[in-house]
C-alpha cells in the first residue's frame, strides 16, 4: 500500500498516550532537532523535502518558512491551522483524534525551526472533543519535559496552546484565522503585509495546516532528500486523502502522491469502487471549491493520459479540462446524483460562509444561490445559465481572500461540464422536479 509517513502507527492501541507514542519512535525528531541541528538546518531539510502546504493551496512549506521576518526582540509565532472546514475534508480531524502526539511533536520541531517560543493550534469550534484530546496530549508532553522551559535540556523554551473557533469556514483562511485567534470576527486582512511580517498580534507568524506540520518529524528523522524521493516530480511525499460520497469504503487514506485516479476509485485498498454497483458520474477531487470533473475527465486528461493523484496531473488542462488536488478531499458522485442540486448546495454553503466584507462575494454568492435554487426547483429561465457564468466571473479574482474564487469555481465548472443537465432542468421543469428524477444524457454520452 505504499510508504506510510503519517499513519504507520495510527491504529496502534493507546497511540494517543505519550508512553505508547514514544515506544513507536515518537518525539525522536524533537531530540534530533533540538540537540543536533540548528533551526536553519531544520528549515533547509524541509526546503529540500519539497513538502507543500497540505491545507489546499500547495505552497512550498520550506519557502513559506524562509519568508518569516526575524526582527530583533520581536516574538515570532507558529500557528497550526486545524480549522478544517472545506466540505469533503475530514483528514485532519481524523488524524488529530487518533494520533494527537504526532501533531504536538510536529509543532515542537517546527516551532524550534522558526524560533517561536509560543505556538497555537487553532481548531474549529465544532471539534471541542478533539481539542480535549490535544490538550491531554499537550499536558503529557509538558510533564515529560517536551514542552515548557529548557526542553530536554536544550535551552529552547516553547509553550503550546489550543484555541477553538466558533463555526466559520472563513477562519480557514490564514488572516481570518489570525483575527479569530485574537478574539475578533473572522474577516480576512488585506495583504500585504503578509503574516510572515505582521501576523498574530502584529508579529511575524507562520500558519501551516495540521498535515503539513505532522509531516515535519519524518523529514527531520529521515532527511528532506529521502522525503523528496517519494511521489512524482514536484508532488513529493504522501498525502492524506479524505474519500467521501457514493463509494464502498469512505474514509481517510494515506497515499504516495502519484497513485492513478482510476486505481484510487476502484481498488479495494482505497475507495473500493462505486456503491451499489452503480456507475461513476463525476468527482470533485480536492474539496468543494475545486472544479468538478465528469467521469471521463477525472480518469484521463484531455490528452488521453491516465490522471494521477498529484498536484500537477489533477490540474492538467487548467480549468478547461482539469481541476486541483486542493485539500485532498475526494468527493465521488454516482449516476443518480443531480449536478444542479449539488451545485446549488455548494452555492448555499459559500453564501452562508461569506464574511461579507467584499461586495462581489457578499452579493454574488447569494445571487448564484438564488438562481441555482430556481433552476433546481423548476423555475429557471434559459438565460440563467449564462447569468451564472457571468456572476461567477465577476466574483473570481475580485475579493480580498480566496473565498470568492472558491465560490465561483464549482459553479463555473458545473456549467462548463454539465451544461446539458442545467438546460434539461430549465426546459423540462416537470420531469426534472419529479421525485428521484436524474438527468442521464451526459452519462450515456460518456459510456456510449
Amino acid at each position, binding site marked *: 500500500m505504499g510508504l506510510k509517513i503519517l499513519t504507520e502507527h495510527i491504529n496502534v492501541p493507546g497511540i494517543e498516550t505519550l508512553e505508547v507514542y514514544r515506544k513507536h519512535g515518537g518525539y525522536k525528531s524533537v531530540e534530533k532537532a533540538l540537540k543536533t541541528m540548528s533551526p536553519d538546518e531544520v528549515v533547509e531539510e524541509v526546503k529540500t523535502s519539497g513538502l507543500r502546504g497540505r491545507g489546499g493551496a500547495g505552497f512550498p512549506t520550506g519557502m513559506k518558512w524562509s519568508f518569516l521576518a526575524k526582527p530583533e526582540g520581536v*516574538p515570532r509565532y507558529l500557528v497550526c491551522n486545524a480549522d*478544517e*472546514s*472545506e*466540505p*469533503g*475534508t*475530514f483528514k*485532519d*480531524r481524523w488524524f488529530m483524534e487518533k494520533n494527537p502526539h504526532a501533531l504536538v511533536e510536529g509543532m515542537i520541531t517546527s516551532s524550534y525551526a522558526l524560533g517561536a517560543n*509560543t505556538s*497555537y493550534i487553532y481548531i*474549529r*469550534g*465544532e*471539534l*471541542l*472533543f478533539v481539542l*480535549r484530546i490535544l490538550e491531554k496530549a499537550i499536558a503529557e508532553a509538558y510533564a515529560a519535559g517536551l514542552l515548557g522551559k529548557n526542553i530536554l535540556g536544550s535551552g529552547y523554551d516553547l*509553550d503550546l*496552546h489550543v*484555541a*477553538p*473557533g*466558533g*463555526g*466559520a*469556514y472563513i477562519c480557514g483562511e490564514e488572516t481570518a484565522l489570525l483575527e*479569530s*485567534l*485574537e*478574539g*475578533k*470576527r*473572522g474577516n480576512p486582512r488585506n495583504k500585504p503585509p503578509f503574516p510572515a511580517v505582521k501576523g498574530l*498580534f502584529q508579529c511575524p507568524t507562520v500558519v501551516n495546516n495540521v498535515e503539513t506540520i505532522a509531516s515535519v518529524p519524518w523529514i527531520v528523522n529521515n532527511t528532506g532528500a529521502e522525503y523528496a524521493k517519494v511521489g512524482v516530480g514536484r508532488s513529493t511525499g504522501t498525502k492524506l486523502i*479524505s*474519500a*467521501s*460520497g*457514493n463509494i464502498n469504503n*469512505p*474514509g*481517510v487514506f494515506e497515499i504516495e502522491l502519484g497513485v492513478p485516479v482510476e486505481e484510487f476509485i476502484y481498488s479495494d485498498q482505497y475507495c473500493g469502487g462505486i456503491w451499489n454497483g452503480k456507475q461513476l458520474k463525476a468527482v470533485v477531487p480536492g474539496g*468543494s471549491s475545486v472544479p468538478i470533473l465528469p467521469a471521463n475527465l477525472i480518469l484521463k486528461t484531455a490528452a488521453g493520459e491516465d490522471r494521477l493523484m498529484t498536484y500537477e496531473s489533477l490540474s492538467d488542462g487548467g480549468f478547461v479540462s482539469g481541476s486541483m488536488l486542493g485539500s485532498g*478531499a475526494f*468527493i*465521488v*458522485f454516482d449516476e443518480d*446524483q443531480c449536478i444542479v*442540486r*449539488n451545485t446549488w*448546495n*455548494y452555492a448555499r*454553503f459559500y453564501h*452562508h*460562509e461569506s*464574511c461579507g466584507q467584499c461586495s462581489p462575494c457578499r452579493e454574488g454568492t447569494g445571487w448564484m444561490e438564488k438562481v441555482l435554487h430556481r433552476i433546481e426547483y423548476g423555475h429557471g429561465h434559459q438565460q440563467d445559465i449564462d447569468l451564472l457564468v457571468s456572476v461567477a466571473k465577476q466574483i473570481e479574482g475580485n475579493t480580498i481572500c480566496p473565498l470568492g474564487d472558491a465560490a465561483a469555481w464549482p459553479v463555473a465548472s458545473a456549467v462548463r461540464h454539465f451544461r446539458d443537465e442545467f438546460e434539461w432542468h430549465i426546459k423540462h421543469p416537470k420531469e426534472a422536479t419529479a421525485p428521484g428524477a436524474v438527468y442521464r444524457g451526459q452519462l450515456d454520452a460518456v459510456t456510449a
Partner: protein
Amino acid sequence: MAGDKIKMAETINEVKFSDAAMAEIQRYISHYPEGRHKSALLPILHIAQAEFGGWVSPEVMDKVAEILNIKPIEVYEVATFYTMFNLKPVGKHVLEVCRTGPCCLRGADQMIDMIKQKLNIEEGETTADGMFTLKPVECLASCGSGPMLQVRELYYENIDSEEKLDAFLEMMRNKEHETPTWKK
C-alpha cells in the same frame, strides 16, 4: 420605566459563572500575552454557552465583556458572527445536522426531512416539550460518515436509515448532557 431598569439590573446580577467555569476561563486567558487577553473571547463564549443552557443571552455577553474588561459590543459582534453561538433560547438537545454536499450524497436531505416530520418542527424551531431544536449546519468534517449530526460536543455518525434515526432520537430523549471536562 424605572421599574424595568431595576429588574434588568437584577437579571445581570444573576449571571454568575461557577468556580469551575471561572477557573477554565482564567486558564484560557493565561494562554495569551499581556494585554492580549481578548483572544480568549471565543473559548469563553463556548464555556458560557455550556454553563447557561446552550445559548448566550445579552446579559451573559455583558458578563463576558466585564470579565475580559472589553466593551459589550466587542462581544456582541463576535457572538453574532460565529454560527455556533445560539443567541436565542434552545431546546435541551440542539440537533446540528450537516446539510452540506458530501453528506447529502449519502442522504442528509432525507434525514433532515425525516427529523422535521417526526418532531413536527421546521429548521430553527424547538419542539413543544423543549426537548429538541433542529439546527441544520454546514460541513462538520465528517463527510465519510454521513448523514451525521452534532449535539453539544459529540458527533453521531452514519445515521442512514429511519430505524437508526428513531433509535437515536429515543436515546437522546433519555440522555443528560455530558459534563464538560473542566467540570469533572
